[in-house]
């Protein structure tokens, strides 16, 4: 099975990953995450006292602010804020600091495809850097379905535009975590469960399931990378 990628990658090959922590001095936690030429900076402030309106004060509240590279926030940014907020809520232990708000600010530095997954990875690393109590880490990836039916991973912007459909997928990563009752859920390992799924374009259900499979396999590698970058912090906990 042959597929030509503009940058000569194999279908399953990710772009070079880079992650640096504590890049911002004033933030309580920060990280930058790079996949090829896509780069996102995330900063965490808080927890601050009190929750916002319409939030449950019995739990910790997470607020996400998405800053585009240029221009003003529109509907796309609002949607990404909501997806990011709900994704981060699902990995944080919200009962530990009730009636507090933690702000996560995401700044897009450069968008060369797979922007939302890159931002989720950056935000997750920033939360670890800030010492926010987490159930487990989240690893995000973009799977693309080419016109020919091939699945390719971590597309660049150019590839994204040529694709028939794509899926942003977020999986949990439980390797380091305090998990009661092990990481098996109903016969399937926890890492197989989807935290977040966002798709664009039409594909068959089978194609989606193939994307899931390939995404899962790739996130194992990314998890290893994430843990290596965060190692000093994770072992402290």
């Amino acid at each position, binding site marked *: 099975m042959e597929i030509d990628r503009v940058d000569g990658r194999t279908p399953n090959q990710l772009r070079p990953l880079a992650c640096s922590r504590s890049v911002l001095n004033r933030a309580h936690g920060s990280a930058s995450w790079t996949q090829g030429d896509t780069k996102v900076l995330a900063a965490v402030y808080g927890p601050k006292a009190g929750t916002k309106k319409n939030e449950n004060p019995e739990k910790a509240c997470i607020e996400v602010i998405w800053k585009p590279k240029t221009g003003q926030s*529109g509907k*796309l940014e609002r949607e990404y804020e909501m997806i990011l907020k709900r994704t981060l809520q699902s990995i944080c232990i919200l009962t530990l600091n009730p009636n507090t708000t933690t702000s996560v600010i995401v700044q897009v530095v450069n968008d060369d495809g797979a922007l939302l997954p890159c931002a989720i990875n950056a935000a997750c690393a920033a939360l670890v850097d800030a010492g926010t109590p987490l159930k487990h880490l989240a690893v995000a990836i973009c799977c693309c379905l080419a016109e020919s039916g091939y699945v390719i991973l971590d597309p660049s912007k150019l590839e*994204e*535009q040529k694709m028939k459909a794509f899926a942003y997928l977020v999986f949990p990563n439980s390797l380091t975590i305090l998990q009661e009752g092990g990481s098996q859920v109903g016969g399937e390992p926890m890492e197989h469960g989807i935290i977040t799924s966002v798709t*664009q374009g039409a594909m068959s259900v089978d194609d989606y399931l193939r994307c899931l499979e390939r995404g899962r396999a790739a996130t194992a590698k990314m998890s290893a990378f994430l843990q290596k970058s965060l190692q000093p912090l994770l072992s402290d906990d």
Partner: protein
Amino acid sequence: MAGKGGATPSTYAPSPTTQKTKSLIFGNDDVDWVRSDGREFHQCRPAFFKTGAVNCASGSAYAEFGNTKVIVSLFGPRESKKAMMYSDIGRLNCDVSYTTFATPVRGQSCLGKNLVIDPILEEESYQDGSLMLTCMPSRYEVTQLTITGEWSTPKVNEVRQIADLFFVVLYQMLFDQRTSDRYF
């Protein structure tokens, strides 16, 4: 991935620009013209009321006068904002919004030498003056009176008399929703 969202190009409605002139509606003789929907001058449009239109509101209603359709929801009472000064009385916050495809404004108005009640939009745009009267029929009290244009005292009294009849019927409808599709 955002596709061709971008800036929306400028657009215009293809509706005919040749506006009907006033004389086209009213005819040459000011006294003798027909309303475009065939109603008499003192006749209201078919009205329809329904309470409980919005399930999640504490109280709500839907009202229809011909093609003018309005939904009202009521929420609360809620605790006032902490920044507000303490007060012994409550406050009523009103918010009115139009859909982008709505027909705006209604009232009661006077056209030519005749009194017309419950005008449609087309009639409203040619009015010489309007008078809007709000009252509480059960207490026989006027709560609001808005007049624009020039009105003589006898004309105002004429409106009062027509409106009295009108209010009684509306009041009946509101409390007897079985007669929901009644025509005035």
